[in-house]
């Protein structure tokens, strides 16, 4: 075979290479800078592998070109119904991530003290056994509470793997830095109110926007108005969501963008509202007030399919049941009938003989006065005029009114998508309530063109293949015991966390710091870099330095591994793993294209640990390998990757294709394929509440809520706070558990001024926000040269007026400082943010791992040194959300860039791909 010497970069552009991989040992530093000369092989036959990306949550269809066992090129899959051949920078960086010299290649054990950055390579067998020894000892000594597991949203499809492991372990805590700060508030609360789905464009449920161009025109009603509230698809999902939103906008869809930043979507919007960070709920309350006052709401829908006409017990805040007043059955509610001027039981779905009052206060047969839910809502929002909102949100009242009217004109073929922004402040639950209420008021639920749809990916068992045992089955023998579930840290205070089986990060940290109410001793973590992603990162670092055993599972060395871990386990990139993903009406497959070094899919890490615990006598771990106990729904744990893959095939076949005999081979043989036609896919959502109920076909199916109507007055929130009973019928955690009492949560959204407010803070006068970039997903890809060349350092966006006030110029290096710390960024003077608003994205610098002080890698340009997760700054009551956006800071000019950071394209040369063979990964050398 002839070879040609070429530069490494040229080699990547040619997209063909072959060379041996260097085994890693010694320090991370030496590994970071070690680059073997690249050699391009003469072409042999190239295999095109249809697979799906996981560089972010969009799961775009991709075609991987594989030659001589190596991935040499990636391109978007033109046949994928969602990205249609498009691919973004994150996905195309997949090769550089896969063959990055900074891969964690083998199980590694720290030598020396924590943070010493000295490692020795060990076998999988040694790693699993040594970790399991410690775990088993702590299980016996202190019980399941000794363990805390975590994951992240950085491309990890096995999101529930830690929670699955904890269900086998029998207790303990699970956290994720997103969760209460990303998606959980919307994912849970919006579903509770509209009984259908949340509105996150980035996370998958907003499928309607993909249908134009796929669904026959005669059956398709394109979205008329799209309100993107803290949503930037042109940044977060260029190939998929960004592409379709652009197409819709080009074809006449009107858009309103509410975002402190002038994103590309904001620049093209009919109205851009550059809202002050942290004040979104104030604006939502004003929208609600305007819509109610101007009688713009959907009269028929609100009357027949919401709980707004129901009378509310003023003492309890709960809607009356007819049985409470001797008017009817327990499952009937109470309305005030106009015709008879009296309280009447309202049966499901609607008694046409009744004409319920929507507003008013009425005297009940028991002498109590009661308002309708709608009247309570109206009273609640009455103070929120456009002028008041404009004043608080730093907006213009006329612009707000224009935005509302654009939205209203498109309804019901319209909707609002709420992005992550509001999940990252203390008003997180209220923002999700507000978003859901607006779409409910306007009847934008399950209508052609509306954003909220009832689509298959959103019904149980949900679109994560690997799930915690007993998630949907309270009596499952491997479900986490109730007393342990109740003991999860911060759970009784913030019961919304139960929807994702999660614990409250600040409470976990406090428990580690104080030992109260008990001290987690072992931390097993699977994600990129918690030190870059968690608010008030310094507190997190200090706490995690004191846990007894830290295990980090990831693909690349990060500061979490270098500075905190005792053991590091190599994890597979998406190009090395097997998975399945729904793509509208089709099911697609992620086919492993290669498997490098001893890396394995993280599902195997957890499986192997479970097997090792089983060997030591852990009864639940033993049971997790018993098919009679684990059951087919959840599958057993897997001793080999082949077993896991067969479960994936079974999952897809049984839940989507009505076949219970599938394994990986059968799935692989036909994927991707349609599990229903696109016409069926669309039609199954539109007005699906009117379809016959499966159990009682004489009644309509209704919505997935307690009342089977939409519940914009969400009294289920009161029950949630009191009992932990998650309202609704389609929730991820069944409502049978009863948890200890805590505070009531409010049925209606309310506004709290950010704890640190630029309105009153004179010492830290500027308000900091953050937001997505097209180059990275959360903490990922900071070590790929392709992405870092494009965005080498975090930009600090500053309005010219503010820049002048501070005395800084474009390109100046800056210090940003809050009450919790200081870090750096580089000034970009721009009118893309309002005066006094500062934007900078989270960042970390892998190049500093190769320095005398690797701790600097998470400190020098990381705004999470400034953000909050401490008790002094109030959390959201329902979810315990801490504040990442809308904190106050001050800015000063710095002397220059942080020492040692890379800013020029050639700096990133050491990270250019290190070609390596298909070894079969860790599965080839170890099996439980």
């Amino acid at each position, binding site marked *: 075979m002839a070879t040609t010497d070429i530069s490494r970069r040229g080699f990547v552009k040619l997209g063909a290479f072959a060379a041996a991989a260097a085994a890693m040992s010694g320090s991370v530093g030496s590994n970071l800078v070690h680059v073997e000369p690249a050699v391009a092989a003469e072409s042999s036959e190239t295999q095109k592998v249809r697979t799906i990306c996981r560089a972010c949550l969009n799961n775009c269809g991709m075609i991987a070109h594989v030659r001589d066992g190596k991935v040499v090129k990636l391109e978007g899959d033109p046949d994928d119904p969602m990205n249609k051949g498009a691919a973004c920078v994150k996905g195309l960086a997949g090769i550089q991530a896969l063959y990055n010299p900074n891969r964690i290649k083998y199980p590694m054990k720290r*030598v*020396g*003290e*924590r*943070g*010493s950055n000295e490692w020795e390579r060990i076998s999988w067998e040694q790693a699993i056994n*040594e970790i399991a*020894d*410690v775990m088993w*000892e702590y299980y*016996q*000594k*202190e*019980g399941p*509470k*000794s363990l805390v597991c975590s994951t992240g949203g950085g491309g990890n499809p096995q999101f529930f793997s830690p929670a699955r492991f904890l269900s086998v372990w029998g207790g303990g805590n699970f956290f994720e830095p997103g969760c209460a700060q990303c998606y959980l508030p919307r994912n849970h609360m919006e579903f509770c109110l509209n009984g259908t789905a949340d509105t996150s464009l980035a996370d998958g449920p907003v499928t309607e926007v993909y249908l134009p161009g796929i669904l026959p025109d005669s059956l398709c009603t394109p979205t008329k108005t799209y309100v993107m509230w803290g949503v930037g698809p042109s940044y977060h999902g260029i190939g998929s969501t960004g592409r379709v939103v652009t197409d819709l906008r080009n074809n006449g869809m009107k858009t309103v963008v509410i975002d402190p930043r002038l994103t590309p979507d904001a620049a093209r919007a009919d109205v851009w509202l550059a809202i002050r960070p942290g004040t979104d709920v104030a604006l939502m309350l004003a929208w609600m007030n305007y819509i109610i006052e101007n009688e713009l709401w959907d009269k028929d829908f609100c009357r027949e399919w919401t709980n707004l006409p129901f009378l509310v017990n003023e003492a309890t805040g709960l809607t009356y049941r007819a049985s409470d007043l001797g008017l009817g059955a327990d499952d009937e509610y109470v309305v005030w009938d106009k015709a008879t001027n009296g309280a009447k039981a309202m049966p499901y779905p609607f008694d046409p003989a009744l004409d319920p009052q929507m507003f008013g206060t009425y005297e009940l047969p028991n002498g109590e006065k009661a308002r309708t839910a709608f009247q309570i809502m109206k009273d609640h929002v009455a103070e929120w005029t456009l002028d008041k909102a404009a004043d608080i949100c730093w907006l213009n009242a006329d612009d707000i009114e224009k935005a509302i009217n654009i939205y209203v004109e498109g309804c019901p073929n319209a909707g609002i998508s709420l992005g992550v922004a509001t999940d990252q402040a203390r008003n997180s639950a209220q923002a999700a309530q507000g978003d859901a209420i607006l779409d409910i008021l306007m009847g934008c639920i399950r209508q052609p063109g509306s954003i909220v749809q009832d689509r298959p990916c959103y019904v149980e068992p949900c679109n994560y293949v690997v799930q915690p045992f007993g998630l949907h089955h309270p009596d499952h023998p491997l479900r986490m015991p109730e007393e342990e579930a109740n*003991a999860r840290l911060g759970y*009784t205070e913030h019961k919304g966390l139960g929807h994702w089986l999660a614990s409250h990060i600040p409470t976990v940290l406090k428990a580690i710091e104080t*030992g*109260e*109410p*008990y*001290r987690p*001793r072992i931390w097993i973590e699977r994600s990129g870099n918690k030190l870059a992603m968690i608010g008030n990162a310094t507190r997190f670092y200090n706490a995690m*330095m*004191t*846990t*007894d*055993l830290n295990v980090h599972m990831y693909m690349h060395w990060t500061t979490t591994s270098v500075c905190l871990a*005792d053991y590091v386990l190599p994890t597979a990139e998406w190009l090395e793993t097997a998975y399945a993903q729904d793509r509208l009406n089709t099911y697609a497959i992620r086919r492993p294209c290669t498997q490098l070094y001893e890396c394995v899919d993280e599902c195997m890490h957890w499986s192997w640990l479970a097997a090792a615990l089983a060997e030591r006598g852990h009864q639940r771990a033993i049971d997790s390998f018993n098919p009679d106990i684990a059951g087919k729904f959840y599958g057993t744990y897997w001793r080999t990757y082949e077993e896991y893959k067969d479960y994936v095939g079974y999952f897809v076949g049984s839940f989507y294709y009505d076949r219970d005999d599938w394994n990986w081979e059968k799935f692989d043989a036909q994927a991707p394929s349609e599990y229903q036609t696109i016409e069926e896919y669309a039609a199954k959502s539109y007005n699906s509440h009117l379809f016959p109920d499966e159990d009682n076909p004489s009644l309509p199916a209704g919505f997935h809520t307690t009342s089977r109507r939409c519940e914009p007055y969400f009294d289920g929130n009161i029950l949630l706070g009191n009992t932990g009973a998650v309202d609704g019928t389609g929730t991820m955690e069944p409502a049978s558990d009863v948890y*200890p*009492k*805590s505070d009531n949560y409010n049925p209606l959204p309310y506004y709290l001024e950010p704890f640190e407010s630029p309105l009153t803070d004179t010492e830290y006068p500027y308000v900091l926000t953050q937001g997505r970039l097209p180059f990275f997903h959360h903490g990922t890809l900071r070590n790929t040269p392709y992405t870092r060349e494009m965005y080498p350092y975090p930009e600090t966006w500053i309005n010219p007026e503010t820049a002048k006030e501070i005395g800084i110029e474009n390109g100046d290096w800056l210090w940003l400082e809050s009450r919790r710390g200081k870090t750096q960024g580089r000034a970009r003077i721009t009118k893309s943010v309002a005066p006094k608003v500062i934007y900078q994205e989270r960042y970390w610098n892998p190049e500093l791992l190769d320095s005398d002080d690797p701790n600097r890698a998470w400190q020098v340009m990381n705004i999470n040194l400034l953000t909050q997760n401490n008790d002094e700054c109030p959390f959201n009551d329902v979810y315990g959300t801490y504040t990442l956006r809308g904190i106050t800071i001050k800015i000063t000019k710095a002397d220059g860039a942080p020492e040692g950071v890379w800013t020029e394209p050639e700096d990133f040369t050491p990270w250019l791909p290190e070609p390596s063979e298909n070894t079969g990964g860790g599965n080839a050398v170890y099996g439980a």
Partner: protein
Amino acid sequence: MANELIEHNPLLKKPLLTILSLAERRAGESRSSLEQTALGSWDDAYRQSPSACVDILLRGGALGEQVLVDGEPYDGTIEDMQFDDSVSEDAVAEERLSVTDVGHELLEAYAPGRTLRALIADRPLYRDVFAAILDACDAEQGATREELERIVGDMPQAQPNPVTKRAAVYPQYFIDALESAGGIAWQGTWRTTDAGKAHAAA
């Protein structure tokens, strides 16, 4: 700050204190001899070798090192000596360890009697619970975690708040605190240590 050496490496607490204690008792002994002695009672659960632990203590300033060349003090480290052309090839080198002020502070700070007294003095509300655990673990077979949970669970200090039904602390809190303070130790079951017994007797 010296305590960070232990607090940031809790799984190494025992081996680090073992080495320190040994170095204090055998002042002036050579490194190799000390490591060999430590190896005699080394536990697999210690995770790191005696040599790695010595290195950690040296880097953390808890141990000091004097290199002797042919019995004479050498001004530098063993690595310096190896590259020193002025030292003859056949010279005999030896490393001698000594406990520094930082090391003495650590030994004093983590002396079980002291930490146990401090724990219980700082938490008078929980004195009875600690005493009950020390007593239970002093049984011939020691006490299992489940047994301790039952004992603690019956005590008023561990009862949940009647309104919130939340426990301020769980039994693990007491077990963890007593182990950290050196009052009990895990040997397949929980056992009261000599320091724990002494405290209970007092």
